[in-house]
């Protein structure tokens, strides 16, 4: 069990070691879905939710596998459970809120291959977080992901109007902006020790 306080875990996961900008996890949706502010917010919310569920599941799996002495099955079980969870969430959302389901569209199934989700599950086990710590960590990571996505979407909406040389438009420009954002997030390094 790690000794870190809940506050420092939260700030560490959301700001200092932001999943997107410091660990490069979830880059695919970060680059793909950050074109519009509205979709970015929804995607962030969906990812945060799945992260929380996956974190709880991962904690249970890890405890069970450790008790059985089968740690090498960890990765396989994690990915299967995450895929199943995403499927369940998809069915649940479809049933309870068709409007939200249509809005999320293709993003929901894509979350399965979002490395940020598996990253949360792997990091919390590697660092030996307890149950409450894991949940706080997942929440922080999800909020950090949403924050990065929304910031990026806002900047890209403005860039649409800017007069940028033709050659730079597209992936390269997005990457440069992401790099500058990442530099900016390094400023949080002093927070919370």
């Amino acid at each position, binding site marked *: 069990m790690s000794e870190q306080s809940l506050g420092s875990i939260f700030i560490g996961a959301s700001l200092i070691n932001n999943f997107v900008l410091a660990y490069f996890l979830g880059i695919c949706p970060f680059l793909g879905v950050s074109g519009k502010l509205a979709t970015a917010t929804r995607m962030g919310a969906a990812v945060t939710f799945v992260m929380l569920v996956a974190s709880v599941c991962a904690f249970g799996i890890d405890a069970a596998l450790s008790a059985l002495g089968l740690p090498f099955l960890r990765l396989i079980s994690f990915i299967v459970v995450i895929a199943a969870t995403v499927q369940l969430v998809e069915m649940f959302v479809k049933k309870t809120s068709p409007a939200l389901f249509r809005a999320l569209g293709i993003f929901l199934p894509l979350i399965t291959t979002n490395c940020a989700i598996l990253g949360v599950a792997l990091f919390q086990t590697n660092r030996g977080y307890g149950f409450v710590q894991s949940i706080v960590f997942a929440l922080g990571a999800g909020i950090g992901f949403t924050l990065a996505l929304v910031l990026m979407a806002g900047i890209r909406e403005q860039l649409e109007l800017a007069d940028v040389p*033709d050659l730079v438009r597209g992936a390269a420009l997005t990457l440069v902006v992401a790099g500058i954002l990442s530099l900016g997030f390094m400023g949080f390094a002093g927070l919370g020790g």
Partner: protein
Amino acid sequence: MTPTTLPPAADVPSSSAELLEGLWRDNPVFVQLLGMCPVLAVSNTARNALAMGLATLFVLVLSNGLVSSLRRFVPRQVRIATYILIIATFVTIVDLLIQAISLDLHKALGAFISLIVVNCLILGRAEAFASRNTVGRSLLDGLGMGAGFTVGLLALGAVREVLGFGSLFGLAVFPATFQPWVVMILPSGGFFTLAAWLLLIAARQRRRAGAGAPAAIATTGVAR
């Protein structure tokens, strides 16, 4: 329509074309922008980049081979889950292999070895190529794409290590008076280096196509 009944593409390319496709024309890093997470995260030194590239190559070739040989037996509804299970199995093997070969390397790459599972490149090749082509061609495709991925990683890792540490594969390149560019080792250096490579390739592409045609690479990127 099931993938099992799909005939191979009309113009069956030679095996060398299969290899070159992934290596250069459809390079997963620079052209398709797939599997960006490991590309940016572990390319801070050339050694890490090479190890990551080879690990991905290994998983890609073997999973392509297995997916292709099972393509007539896997029901369409559960194919993605099956692919992920196959990939996860090979990734676990790679993880244990690297741990056995070099504990240092295993520590440096950390969770990113396990994260090969969710590399969209591997699942993408399984779904788009291996599930509808013969075992031999799938193996070649995996080899080409994996090699292209390794080249891309190495291109990033070499630049970042030379500028960030003043060395290449741990050997000093510049005299001791060289001031390392610390930003290159930091996460933002990864973004900047990849952006620079993309620009370079787009500029080259454009010069070739003539001034009229727009640069294909810069616009087709960022698909997922």
